[in-house]
Structure formats: C-alpha cells, structure tokens
C-alpha cells in the first residue's frame, strides 16, 4: 500500500522523505475504488474539471475586464469583440457556470439516491454543502459583473433580502452595498470576492476529496466493502479512463452550448446596460437558483421568505441525521425510492414556478412544492427511515450472498454499466 511506498530512484527517495508527494500520487493511483460504480459517480471528476475551467477562463477574463459601473458593460463587449478569442473565453465561462451547476445537481441527487451522505461520509457531505453554498455566492456575484439590467436588478433584489433582518437589516444591506444602493462600490467588491471564492472552493474540494479517501467511495449497492479486494479496482487506470470518457461526453454537450447556443441559458436583458431608472418587467435569477427563488417568493412575508430560503439549504446539512435508515442505497429501499423521485419532481417544479410571475396558480404550486420540500426532509425521511421495510442487501459486490434472484440481476446490471 502507498503508506510503505518507497520510490525506486535515489532522488525520488531523497525528495519523498522530505515531502511525500510521490507517496501521495501513489495513494491516488492505487486508491481502491468499488468496481461497480456507475456513471453517476463520474460527476465528481467532471466537477473538478468545471472548477478548473472556471478558474482558468476567469483569470483570463479578469485581465481584460474593468470593474467600474461606467465601463464594465463595455469592457465585456470589448472582450467579445476585440480580444483574441475573447468570445470563446467568455462563453466558456458563462456557460461553464451553468454546466457546473448541472453537474453539481446531478452529483447531489446521486448522493441522495445512493445514501452517500450517511455514516461514515457525513463530513464529505457537509463539505459538499459548503462548496455548494460558496458556488451559489460565487455565481451570483459573477452574474453581477457584466453590469447588465439583470445583473443590476438581480443584485438589488437579492441584497435587499438582508434588509428583512430585524434591527440590523438596514445597516447590513448598506454595508453590503458600500452605499445606499447597488452602485460602483458594490460592483468592485463583488468582483474582488468573485475572484477570491473559487480558490476557497478549491480548498474545500481538497478537503472534500481527502475526507472521501478516508472511508473510500460509496457504491450503487451502498454496502461497506473490503479494500482492496475483489470488489475494488485501482483508481488508475480503471476509474481515470472511465471518468475521462464521461468527461468527454460532458464536454461535447458543453461545446454544443458554447458554440451553437451560447446565450440560450442567459437572459436577453443582460445585454442591456444596467439602468437604475428602468426596472425590468420580470426579474429572474439564473436557472440554477430558481428553486430557491420560488421558495423565497412563496412566503408573503419578506423575513419569513428569507428564513425559509436559508432553511432550505441548511436543512440539507442536517440530512445525515434526519435519515437514520441503516441501508444506504435506494435500490434496497423501495419506498424511499419513490419519495426520492417525488423530491426530484418537486425541485423541478420549484424551478419552473421560480421563473414565472409569483401569482395565481404559479404561486399556489410554489407554496405546495415548498411545503412538500420541507416535509420530505423533516417529516417523511425521519419517519420513513424508522418504519421502512428494506430489502436484503448483498454481502459483497462480487458475491451477492444474501440476494435472491432479482438482486443478483440488479448488481449485474450495475456492473454492466461499468
């Protein structure tokens, strides 16, 4: 194992005794990984790619961008028109944000389906949630930078939320703005933080993966496995090539957006320069924040909406303790599986009504879906995890000792997807 690894070359040994980088890389290549991981497990690698791609394109954009209320909009257009391949860099970055969120949502729902958040992986999960929070903050601030109409009004709506906090709300909002409205000081600090946060995310990702390497990966059948054993394969080359394959497929879709529909995920109003005197008819955030926007607007009271908004995210942090079922994978939890899919539909519905005006039927749907969202985590899961009759789980991946016929096939089908 990598702990006792001794580099073959003399220099390698000398270096490794002082800084065990070679031991680390040996650990990473040897890392025993369950052999039945399906493609939902490739999104961790895809996310790493997204993060690095955002950082690299972001740094290049930062070389040409001007963080000033009078110049930001035109500096973006300067990038699009005059900087060599500036349009490409910018479209990678703006669509990259969407692809990043698409991947993270799949990654999170993967964890929900296979119970990856459960013991002993709670810290991985919590680090993941912190990453997700920072991602949302980063994306929100990034969206402000082009200083279009949606940038400006989105920033106004979201920062105004803090004014709902009793007593100190007003001061907090003014502090965030650096003035009495969203203006140049807001833009410059958002740029500064937007540059900083991805590196914080990077740090958290390192911890996330570190924490992952302690218990090792969960897997589709959700059982603990012996490592290394017949149930595992070394990370390299087996998982690296599979991750690469999935990443390439992801990149094909990504390229489809960049080259052939680069503005389809954005809002056309953001090609109108910010104007504090003209309010757009519908102020909508980017698609990946819509479910939360729907939750926010489903409460008639501003403070209540803000509380629910934050609660909807923080409730996920408590998830490992809300769901006490010992069985991880939904494959062996017939009832949980149904509720899982209802939750998926619920969140999609929230996203849909988040894009619609908060009135009439839309508002009703938003309210029902919000209530269901909380009920899923606070009522259904705690009760279900105590009363659900789970199906018998196999003892190992290769030798499904406990399984009757149907289960064996299940595992086979997982393996075939390898």
């Amino acid at each position, binding site marked *: 194992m990598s702990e006792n690894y001794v580099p073959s070359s003399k220099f390698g040994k000398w270096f490794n005794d002082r800084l065990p980088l070679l031991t680390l890389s040996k650990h990473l290549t040897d890392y025993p990984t369950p*052999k039945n991981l*399906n493609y939902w497990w490739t999104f961790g690698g895809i996310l790493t790619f997204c993060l690095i791609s955002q950082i690299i394109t972001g740094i290049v954009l930062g070389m040409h961008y001007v963080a000033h209320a009078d110049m930001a909009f*035109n500096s973006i*257009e300067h990038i*699009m*028109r005059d900087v060599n391949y500036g*349009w*490409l860099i910018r479209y990678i970055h703006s669509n990259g944000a969407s692809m990043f969120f*698409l991947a993270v*949502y*799949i990654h999170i*729902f993967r964890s929900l*389906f296979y119970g990856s958040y459960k013991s002993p992986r709670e810290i991985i999960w919590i680090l993941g949630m912190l990453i997700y929070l920072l991602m949302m903050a980063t994306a929100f601030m990034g969206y402000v930078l082009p200083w279009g109409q949606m940038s400006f009004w989105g920033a106004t709506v979201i920062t105004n939320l803090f004014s709902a906090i009793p007593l100190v709300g007003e001061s907090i909002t003014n502090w965030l703005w650096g003035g009495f409205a969203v203006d140049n000081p807001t833009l410059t600090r958002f740029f500064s933080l937007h540059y900083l946060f991805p590196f914080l995310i990077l740090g958290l990702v390192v911890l996330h993966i570190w924490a992952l390497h302690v218990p090792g990966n969960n897997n*589709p059948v959700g059982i603990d496995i012996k490592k290394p054993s*017949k149930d595992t*394969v070394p990370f390299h*080359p*087996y998982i690296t*090539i*599979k991750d*690469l*394959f999935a990443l*390439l497929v992801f*990149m*094909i879709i990504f*390229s*489809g957006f960049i*080259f*052939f529909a*680069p*503005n*389809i*995920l954005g809002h*056309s*109003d953001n*090609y*109108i320069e910010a104007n504090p005197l003209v309010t757009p*008819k*519908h102020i*909508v955030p980017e*698609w990946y924040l*819509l479910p939360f926007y729907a939750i926010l607007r489903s409460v008639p009271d501003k403070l209540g909406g803000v509380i629910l908004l934050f609660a909807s995210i923080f409730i996920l942090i408590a998830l490992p303790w809300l769901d006490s079922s010992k069985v991880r994978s939904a*494959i062996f939890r017939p009832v949980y599986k149904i509720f899982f*899919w209802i939750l*998926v*539909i619920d969140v*999609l519905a929230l*996203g*849909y009504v988040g*894009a*619609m005006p908060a009135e009439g039927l839309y508002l009703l749907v938003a309210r029902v879906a919000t209530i269901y969202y909380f009920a899923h985590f606070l009522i259904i899961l705690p009760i279900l995890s105590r009363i659900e009759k789970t199906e018998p789980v196999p003892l190992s991946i*290769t030798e499904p000792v406990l399984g009757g016929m*149907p289960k064996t*096939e*299940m595992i*086979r*089908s*997982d*393996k075939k*997807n390898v």
Partner: protein
Amino acid sequence: MCNTQTKSRTIFLSLIFLLFAFNQAQSEEKIKPLEVDWTFKGITGKFDRASLQRGYQVYTEVCASCHSMNLLSYRNLGEKGGPEFSVDQVKAIAANFEVEDGPNDEGDMFTRPARPSDKFVSPYPNVQAATAANGGAYPPDMSVLVKARKGGSDYIYSVLMGYEEPPQGLELDDGVYYNKYMDGQKIKMSNPLSEGIVSYSDGTNATVSQMAKDVTTFLTWSAEPHLETRHKLGLKVIIFLIIFTILVYLSMRRLWSRIDSEK
C-alpha cells in the same frame, strides 16, 4: 426491476432537459415572432455577405439618424466574417463622418474626417438628447440589440414588419404607433421602412421585407461579430471530441474487459 437503473436514468435525464425547456418557454403572452430562414441559423450558418453590405446601407441611410451603434468601429466593416468591405471602401465610408478630436497643440478641439479606427459616430450627443428628440422614447443603441431582445433576429425582423392599422376603437397618442410584435402592441418609433426608401447599390429591389431582412442580418452580425468563426471552430471541436471519445471508449472497454470477466 432489473433495469431500474436504466429506467431511472432515462427519467432523470429527461427531467433535466424538461427543466431547460421550461425555462426557455417562460412564456409571456406575446404574439410569436415571424420565423425567417436566416442563412446564419444552424450549426453551419454563415452570413450572406451581400445582405450584410445592404444591411449596412439601410442602417446608415435610415436607422442611423436616430439609433447609435457605440460598440462598432468603421474598421469592423472590413473585418473577416462581417460585411467585408474592402480597405478602400472602409476608408471612404469612414471619411463621410466628422469626429471631434484634440486638443491640438494650441489646446483647441477640432473636427476631422473619421478614420477606420474611429467608433461609429452617434446621431445624438447623449441619451437625454436622443430621448428628447424622439418624443420621450430613447432609440436604443443597436450594437447588441439583437441579443438584448427575446426572440433575437426573428423578433427584430418582426417589429420592422409589424406595423399595422390599430384595431377599431384603440386610441393611440401622438407619436405612438401600433405594432403587433411590441410589448403592449405600442411603439414610439414610426415605421422606419417604406418601399424604395433606399436604393440598393447592388440593384436589389428595396422592398420592405428585403430591407428588414438585410438590416436585421447586419444587426445580428454587429451583435455577434464572431459568429462565423464560432460555428466553424465549434464544428471542428465537436468532431474532434467525438473521435476522441470513441477512442477512449474503446480503450476503456478493453481495459475493463479484464475486470468484467474476472468474476
């Protein structure tokens, strides 16, 4: 039961795509714009060079008296992927305009003919002047107008084609016109196009729909000047990725066959 995995996968993917579709459909109660078979549509789309040149003519002879295009320089008219006027044509076009320059050695501002490197000259000194001169409505800058409207090129074309007699009983204020495709069916721009308002130097018949098409093509280019490069590069990138993906897939199968047969 045995293919729950594949089934749930299909469901999940279709739901994700539905989400995108829904967002696109954020339907406002508006009339659907006319659909034009633009040459620049689709993954191999290119601009029609002659149409771009005619479009510039419409812009400069008609729209430019009200609408600015602050983000464009005259040199852009000669660049690849655009109208591709020759160097001399661009110089001649620029020289038609006067720009302010200075201060000179005496400290005075002066005017001189524009050069290709200058930005398009605006019809009004500022937004307020433009608004005041147009009965309180600001003629928006046209550089990225196509991307700043839902519906893009189709929408812009439709607005230009959408002037009609207002329906019976609808009272319109002075300076307000009926237009099918505008929000609220009202626009504060009088119909800018009428048959023969420009005479095309290439002899094309200047019908309203021809001019609307040409000027919209021009505006689409101005909003997305690298569209052609983008399409060309995109095709190459995707073909490369597909080939690479297949190769990686095949080596993956090879590699994993050892594990799969181990059982």
